[in-house]
């Protein structure tokens, strides 16, 4: 399989009032075309920073990101991002159909084709009937499906998802996870998904990358050898799944992978500040 994404020696440091905060340390990994790779890490380990540097939204302090061989400087044209907070990333003044259509303006000049592509993308996520509605008229899960359709409409070679299912209830999360698996199977998409949910990372991923505490770096690259066809009840009950999730949990809680050196000792004060900031952020967004 050809390599879609290559991340090497990626690190990012924020300047804050009281010095510098090392959000991600030294991250290297690759994602092959057609793969769904999950990055799982504890709160405040720099998952979001990692995703933003890969997407080109922020420029990393060190290291390099290559998307099918081309270095990423600024957001590449064939990359799409789904953010955690659908209520803030969708445009409330546009109908669902127009929300999906609007970003296509940068790549498709014909209005009719934009409309057709948006209609098609809404069909993929099962929202054909909701095109004329405004986002606030839909449930949270449906709104996130709109955001997914919007990302898919541009037919990206790489889809980045930042905790996409963290703001919906458990039942809806299962539905959206299955929707993602179905859509990526149908379109052979390459997906990099960041999550703090261990079960989710194992359930969705072909591979799981375990990120250490801040400054985040990858401690383990785990192959998920579950069958491609997955099911919320039987897969999650299977012994392979349970074993994998325990392994990921053990690694997340500081367990040592057999062959890797231990991650550098984190700056605990900086880590606490970052955690507090992220907690505040989660609070301000979860009440919508």
């Amino acid at each position, binding site marked *: 399989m050809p390599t879609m994404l290559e991340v090497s020696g990626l690190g990012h440091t924020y300047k804050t009032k009281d010095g510098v905060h090392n959000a991600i340390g030294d991250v290297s990994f690759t994602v092959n075309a057609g793969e769904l790779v999950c990055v799982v890490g504890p709160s405040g380990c720099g998952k979001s920073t990692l995703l933003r540097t890969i997407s080109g939204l922020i420029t990393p302090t060190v290291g390099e990101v290559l998307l099918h061989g081309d270095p990423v400087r600024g957001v590449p*044209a064939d990359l799409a*991002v789904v953010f955690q907070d659908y209520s803030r*990333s969708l*445009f*409330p*003044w*546009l109908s669902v159909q127009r929300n999906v259509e609007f970003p296509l*303006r*940068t790549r498709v000049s014909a209005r009719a084709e934009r409309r057709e592509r948006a209609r098609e993308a809404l069909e993929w996520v099962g929202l054909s009937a909701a095109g004329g509605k405004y986002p606030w008229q839909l449930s949270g899960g449906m709104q996130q499906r709109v955001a997914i359709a919007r990302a898919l409409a541009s037919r990206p070679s790489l889809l980045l998802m930042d905790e996409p299912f963290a703001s919906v209830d458990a039942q809806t999360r299962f539905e959206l996870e299955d929707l993602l698996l179905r859509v990526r199977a149908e379109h052979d998409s390459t997906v990099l998904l960041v999550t703090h949910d261990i079960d989710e990372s194992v359930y969705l991923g072909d591979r799981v990358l375990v990120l250490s505490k801040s400054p985040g770096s990858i401690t383990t690259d785990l192959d998920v050898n579950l069958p491609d066809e997955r099911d919320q009840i039987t897969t999650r009950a299977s012994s392979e799944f349970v074993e994998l999730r325990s392994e990921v949990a053990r690694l997340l809680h500081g367990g040592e992978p057999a062959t890797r050196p231990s991650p550098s000792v984190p700056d605990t004060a900086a880590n606490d500040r970052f955690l507090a900031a992220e907690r505040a952020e989660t609070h301000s967004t979860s009440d919508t």
Partner: protein
Amino acid sequence: MSWFGKFAYRWVVFVGIVVVWQLATAAADDPFFPPPSTIANTIYHLWLSGPGSQLFLTDTVYDDVFASIGRILLGWAIAAVIGVAIGVLLGRSRTAMDYVNPLFAFARSVPSPALVPVFLVLLDIGTPAQLATIVFGVVWPILMNTVDGVRSVDPIKEETARAFRLSRGQWLLGVVLPAAAPKIFAGLRVSLSLSLVLMVISELVASRNGIGLQMLIAQRAFDYPAMWAGIVLLGVLGYLFNTVLLMVENRALSWQPERHTGH
């Protein structure tokens, strides 16, 4: 409730007050307070008794009333363009507001009518000086509200726009302005009523025509019904302007849940 029922419900207090006013002024028989019926009669003779070729409007409607309305709308429109344009620029800049804030705070505190003598020296008596008074007075609510609205654009929307590589124009027209629109409209409404106020004041001070001038002439000629007619006309104009702008606003912001009336 029927359409008529709703209408009656909304206007019953208004009509009641007018009736009381009529009875009280008729009983008092004071020349300074003519009864509403007299004012209505004056309104008819002053403005609505013209020839059919002028849509039954008198010459003074064309010479004075339309001149005043033109000044309000033109002054307000100029202020809206300036206020929104500068507001967007300042609001999107991280530091610009820090530099100009003291200047704005000072300029905003100067009552626009106090500048009428200045404008009269600098500009022609009549429309130019009046427009300057209106624009200077009403630009601030639009400008400050635009800055506020533009600043409040959600950072996640900004990231979304960048992630989709929206151009600068698409970002400003497609994201920033719609996001700021509720605040901008609030500023526009404050400014529209203020335009009416400043129009009258500027016409009372220095004018060759207009509703304000006619009211001043009526007052100096002890023609109190005509003066009251001018007051009523200004009230009606203010009410109409606000109603029309509210309709436009409700249409433009129909996406907001609290305004949404369904398809």
